[in-house]
């Protein structure tokens, strides 16, 4: 589904990614953890080309995103993104946020898009908020709308970029619940997060990125039970003692 080979990314002189290889199969839930500045979000943002890779190959659903012939807008609809800061469109109602993509990108008729939109809002438990504006919602509700918005394109994968990091602690659970539901339904997901509980419970694979490289790539049991990598041990120690 998503294949990353030898990915390098620099911002000016700063080398953020130094050769990342990652192959995510359809239906897999891959959780990426790592210290801040390690490049984990950058990997995600390279997949949908919000950041242009410096070098390397990224194949999404059979399309090479580095190929100038590839319609990147089309690729983005197959691997949509959920952001840390939600990035809902503040001038639109919740429902309009969700159906903008289907109408403008997929060419869905408005009535059909509205039906789909309500179905998705129902799924994230916010059907009663359809007519509200984002500023009237809590952070957790905003993020659930953002998930519905990215689902509305009926993508093959969703990229979650620290989806719960901007939330008050009591609102994290409701967002994770929705994500678990998606995982159970077989959605391909790549999740950058600090939620170790989620990684342990839901992930098929957990990846530890540090200093621009994948240091550990293992199933959650192995990953958490026997952290051999000293940096990972240090990191897990810090995160766990913190929460």
């Amino acid at each position: 589904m998503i294949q990353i080979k030898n990915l390098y990314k620099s911002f000016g002189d700063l080398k953020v990614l130094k050769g990342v290889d990652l192959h995510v199969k359809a239906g897999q839930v891959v959780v990426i953890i790592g210290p801040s500045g390690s490049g984990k979000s950058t990997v995600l943002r390279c997949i949908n080309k919000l950041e242009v890779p410096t070098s390397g190959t990224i194949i999404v659903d059979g399309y090479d995103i580095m190929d100038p012939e590839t319609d990147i807008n089309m690729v983005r609809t197959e691997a949509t993104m959920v952001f840390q800061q939600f990035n809902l469109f503040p001038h639109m109602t919740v429902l309009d946020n969700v159906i903008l993509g289907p109408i403008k990108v997929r060419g869905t008729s408005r009535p059909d898009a509205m039906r789909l939109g309500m179905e998705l809002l129902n799924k994230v438990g916010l059907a009663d908020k359809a007519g509200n504006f984002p500023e009237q919602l809590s952070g957790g509700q905003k993020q659930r709308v953002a998930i519905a918005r990215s689902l509305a394109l009926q993508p093959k994968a969703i990229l979650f970029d620290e989806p719960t990091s901007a939330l008050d602690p009591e609102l994290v659970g409701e967002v994770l619940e929705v994500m678990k539901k998606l995982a159970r339904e077989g959605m391909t997901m790549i999740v950058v997060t600090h939620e170790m509980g989620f990684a342990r419970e839901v992930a098929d694979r957990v990846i530890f990125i540090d200093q621009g490289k994948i240091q550990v790539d293992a199933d959650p049991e192995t990953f958490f039970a026997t952290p051999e990598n000293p940096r990972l041990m240090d990191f897990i120690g810090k995160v766990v003692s913190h929460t």
Partner: protein
Amino acid sequence: MAFEFEPSVMIESLPLLMGGAKITVILTVGGLFFGFILGAVAGMMKLSRNFFVRKLAGIYIESIRGTPMLVQAMFLYFGIPMALGIRIPAMVAGIIIISVNSGAYIAEIVRGAVQSINPGQSEAGRSIGLTHFQTMRYVVWPQAFRRMIPPLGNQFIISLKDTSLLMIIGVGELLRTGDEIVAVNFRSFEVYLTCGLVYLAMTLSIAKALKMLEKKMHILGK
């Protein structure tokens, strides 16, 4: 001869001045209509990734902002015909001058407003597959437009007042009309005072209308 204030002159000159005010309104509305289009295009050009496109908009903005409007008007109305042998009607020249002039300032307003929108908004637009243009059209512009309203209101008022400079090229706007009345009755105190009051009435109306627009826009989502 002691000065005696004659309020009746103000009343008497009002019908003629309203005729001039009508021309002032036409110049302002016409000028700002095209000025907004020019400004929107130049403002977006300034945000372009292409160096030459950016530079071109920059040259337009700097050269207009850096020269007096009076000079621009006289150059267009008297200078250009001399070089090209075509005469532009004063009214058309007036609207062109207001457009080109306000466009340069509006360009900076547009650029600033678009830049002030959180980059996360365009990223979210692009991430659901919208093209760059669609992202601008449906996501960035509607939000940026709300932020443009206060500075645009300011520009509208400035442009309205600037139309008075066009009397120099013979456009029969408000001040020119007042000038012509004074030439006949020599009551400069009453006539120019009335002119001023009519300008004030128009600028206050713009300010009021924009306040209402701003309020209405705010209710419809932040």
